[in-house]
Each structure stands twice: as structure tokens, then as C-alpha cells.
């Protein structure tokens, strides 16, 4: 197939997305001024565990290759691991963004043991002092 005809075909779109970006929650332990999604407070309309799993099942049926999970701080959700494992278990890779505040040794091991999982941790400063535009809701050190 020539480049031109591939371009023409792609104009009609793919059968399904290659990946999706999903803000799983707007709840966050930090309330950074620079936050792209103005996170901090949980949105009462956020999906329940069952609803989120149904979305993942649809993405599996569409053969979406991976999802980018953000927020908010996705690890705030109590069902975070349940959803990530449901996704990976169904062949949907996960890349997620986190401020890292909730990753302890046990969770780090659990994350490291999963295939098809990429983690992006934000670093907004070079020392322990909170950056000027970051307001840790819990009084913790900054990112």
C-alpha cells in the first residue's frame, strides 16, 4: 500500500482507539495550582468500582491496547489495585501518573510484579520543601 492510500484510509479513523486517557478520580492529597485538571476534591459523579470495570470490559472488547490513568491522584481510590489488576488481567496495559505519596515498600513490590504497567511519578521540586504553587492538603513535604 502506498503512503498516500494509507493516509486516505486513516482519514476514516481506526476501528478503535489505540489508547485512552482516563482521569479515574479528581480526588488528590495535594492541591497544586499548576494541576491540569484542577484536582483536589473528589467528584461525586466519579465511576463506582463496578462501573469502572464495565468500562474496562468494553475497552477489552474493543482491543484497546493500553490506558493512561491519571487524576487526581489515582492511588487515592481504595479500588486502585483492583482496577489496575482487572485491566492488566484483561490484556489492557496501564500507564499511570501518580505523585507517589501512597507508594510504600509493599505497594512498590506489588506494582513491580505486574506486567504491562508503567508508572510516571511527578517531581515538582528539587528538595523536600513544597513548591510555592503546591499546597499539600495533609501538610506533607512537596513533590
Amino acid at each position, binding site marked *: *500500500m502506498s503512503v498516500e492510500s494509507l493516509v486516505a484510509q486513516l482519514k476514516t479513523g*481506526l476501528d478503535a482507539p489505540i489508547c485512552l486517557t482516563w482521569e479515574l478520580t479528581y480526588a488528590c492529597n495535594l492541591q497544586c495550582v499548576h494541576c491540569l485538571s484542577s484536582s483536589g476534591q473528589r467528584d461525586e459523579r466519579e465511576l463506582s468500582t463496578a462501573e469502572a470495570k464495565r468500562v474496562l470490559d468494553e475497552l477489552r472488547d474493543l482491543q484497546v491496547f493500553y490506558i493512561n490513568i491519571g487524576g487526581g491522584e489515582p492511588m487515592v481510590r481504595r479500588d486502585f489495585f483492583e482496577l489496575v489488576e482487572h485491566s492488566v488481567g484483561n490484556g489492557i496495559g496501564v500507564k499511570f501518573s501518580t505523585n507517589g505519596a501512597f507508594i510504600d515498600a509493599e505497594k512498590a513490590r506489588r506494582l513491580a510484579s505486574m506486567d*504491562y504497567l*508503567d508508572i510516571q511519578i511527578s517531581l515538582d521540586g528539587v528538595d523536600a520543601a513544597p513548591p510555592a504553587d503546591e499546597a499539600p492538603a495533609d501538610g506533607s513535604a512537596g513533590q
Partner: protein
Amino acid sequence: MSTDLLTRPLELHPQVALRSEPFGALAYHYGNRRLVFLKHADMVAVARVLADHPSLESALRASGIDERRWPSFEKAFDSLLGSEIVRER
């Protein structure tokens, strides 16, 4: 190009998902995270049966690909070998 690719036994990498598309298929490698476009339905057909055949040549023949087109397929599969979408068995 690798020598004698036609005679070698190939298979889709087990960590690769192949998703049909109007132009052919998308191949995503969950290990190295590469996304590759297979831009012809014949390439997809051959890729899907690679593991059932003792060689690339056998897979091409079984898929009804004209011998005059084999060099272009050999080149394409060599490229897929490089990105680990397919591998040697």
C-alpha cells in the same frame, strides 16, 4: 537483511496483540511497547499463520502469495523481526 529469512520458522511474539483495521492491522507489543502498522491485508494473513508453518516461505505459499511478491514480504517480515513483533521459533 537477515539471510535466508524465507527458510526460517517464525511466529508472532507471544506478547504481541494483532488488531484488525480497515487498512490491515495494528500490532502492539506489550513488552517493548512498540506499535506497528501492518499496512496490507495479505501481511496480516501471513502473520496470523506464521506459527503454523515450518518457514516463512511455507506460510507465504499457504496464504496464496504470488512468488514475485515474496521479496517484499521478506523485507517486511525482516523489519517486524527487528521490532520483535515476530520472532524466530
